[in-house]
């Protein structure tokens, strides 16, 4: 277990954190007050400052120092980056499109290498591979059938070239319900995540106010 902060900056940091937490959460009780806005602005300012310093440090270490060491290939990145900065100026905005097309091409090219194998072939293989007969439990078989049939029905629901009537009515309807269940699961997980955030803040407040020990 760690001790409660003993340094001046540690104590100030903990209390500022606690007060800002209360300021931000005051929104749900009292809507947008000056205290809430103060907390919001400090948060945005600090987040921006951290991002700016990190980006500058990255630029210095990964690009400038390397160019200064004679690795002029990194000038390509600098030129492409500078071209991107023409975006706010209407007359010369077209220059930034070369960088954008380069970035889109790079992202697509790098991503596509794994997308087909991982996101398409791998997912299909994972969905249609039955569990091992010798070790599978009834729940494994249920999961396998549920995933197989569910996938087909949801694909049927998203097939818009055929009207969802007649023979196609019930499968697509069922596919829609399966989709809703999946979204419900996703929403449930979102609730868990948000609750954890709140629980974390509650724990932090109790720690700062010395009601429970520091983590």
């Amino acid at each position: 277990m760690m001790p409660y902060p003993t340094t001046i900056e540690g104590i100030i940091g903990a209390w500022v954190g606690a007060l800002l937490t209360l300021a931000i959460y005051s929104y749900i009780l009292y809507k947008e007050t000056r205290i809430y806005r103060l907390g919001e602005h400090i948060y945005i300012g600090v987040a921006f400052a951290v991002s700016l310093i990190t980006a500058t440090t990255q630029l210095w270490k990964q690009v400038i120092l390397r160019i200064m060491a004679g690795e002029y290939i990194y000038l390509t990145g600098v030129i492409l980056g500078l071209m991107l900065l023409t975006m706010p100026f209407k007359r010369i905005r077209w220059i930034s499109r070369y960088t954008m097309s380069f970035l889109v091409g790079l992202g697509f090219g790098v991503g596509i290498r794994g997308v087909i194998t991982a996101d398409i072939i791998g997912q299909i293989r994972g969905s249609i591979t039955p569990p091992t007969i010798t070790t599978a439990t009834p729940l494994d078989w249920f999961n396998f059938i549920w995933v197989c049939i569910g996938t087909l029905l949801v694909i049927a629901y998203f097939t818009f070239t055929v009207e969802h009537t007649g023979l196609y009515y019930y499968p697509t309807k069922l596919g829609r319900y399966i989709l809703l269940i999946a979204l419900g699961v996703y929403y449930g997980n979102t609730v868990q995540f948000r609750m954890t955030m709140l629980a974390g803040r509650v724990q932090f407040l109790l720690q700062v106010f010395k009601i429970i020990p520091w983590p």
Partner: protein
Amino acid sequence: MGEVPTIWEKISALDKRILYWALFLSLIIPYLRPLGLPLSIAETTYAVYNFINKLGPEHTVVVGIHSGVSAWPECLPGLVVVTKHLVQRGVKLIFWSIGYVDVDLTMDAIKTRVPQLKGPGEIAGPGDYKYGINWVYMGYIAGGEPTSAQLADDIRAVLRADKYGNLIDTLPIFSNVRNARDIALVVTSDTGDYGWYYVRQWTMRYGTPVAEIGIAMIYSEFMPYYRAGLAIGMLKGVRGAAEYEKLTGFLGEATVAMDAMNISHILTILAIIIANISYFMTRRKGGAK
């Protein structure tokens, strides 16, 4: 005289702030008086545990910190307990982030909670992890998926030095590590797409196993990858971390937080049920539309 409102109408018109206070207070109680509610362990958590149990001092693991300070309550306990387990196994560790600029704060938090990780210049005792030999911290690396791909191909092409400016070639931990093939496992803590980057660029191209410590939403999204054998296992947010703490015996923040989580979930479920009953009851009476 107006009609007396029924109990359901009163519930429908309840001030939301009362619910928020009830939730806030219900979260406080378990921290003051832990309830010790039972916790079952998911197959995905077992999978990570069993995999790490097979690793040893000859292996090097990358711990990708791709969750910011804002997600600490959900992701930090998982990162800490998995790091503790890896340290217990004597595995060499490389920490970095290709996603979050505030990674230094998370690294500090891990170091404080795993005291065996001794920083540069700190004296390492028996059982401690000496910086540069047993573990290393590379800091934030910009670039997203292309960077992940480049790191998989050749770590030195992206990184020349660690966070503290020590050249990679002077750090003994990198003597046998050149690319993804030399890494036994990537543990990635995510609030976004970073786990997918490693699956696509490390697992698919080099066969490097990936374990996910994501926020709860990532868990359901990553499940198809686990089922397809593209991820060796997953921890579901703080719940997964609590399960891992139970497995390893390193009881910590996640175990404490689970009671609060359970109580808050029970309260949420009750609120949803009561609100729905009240909605239908008032609608039947012609109240709510």
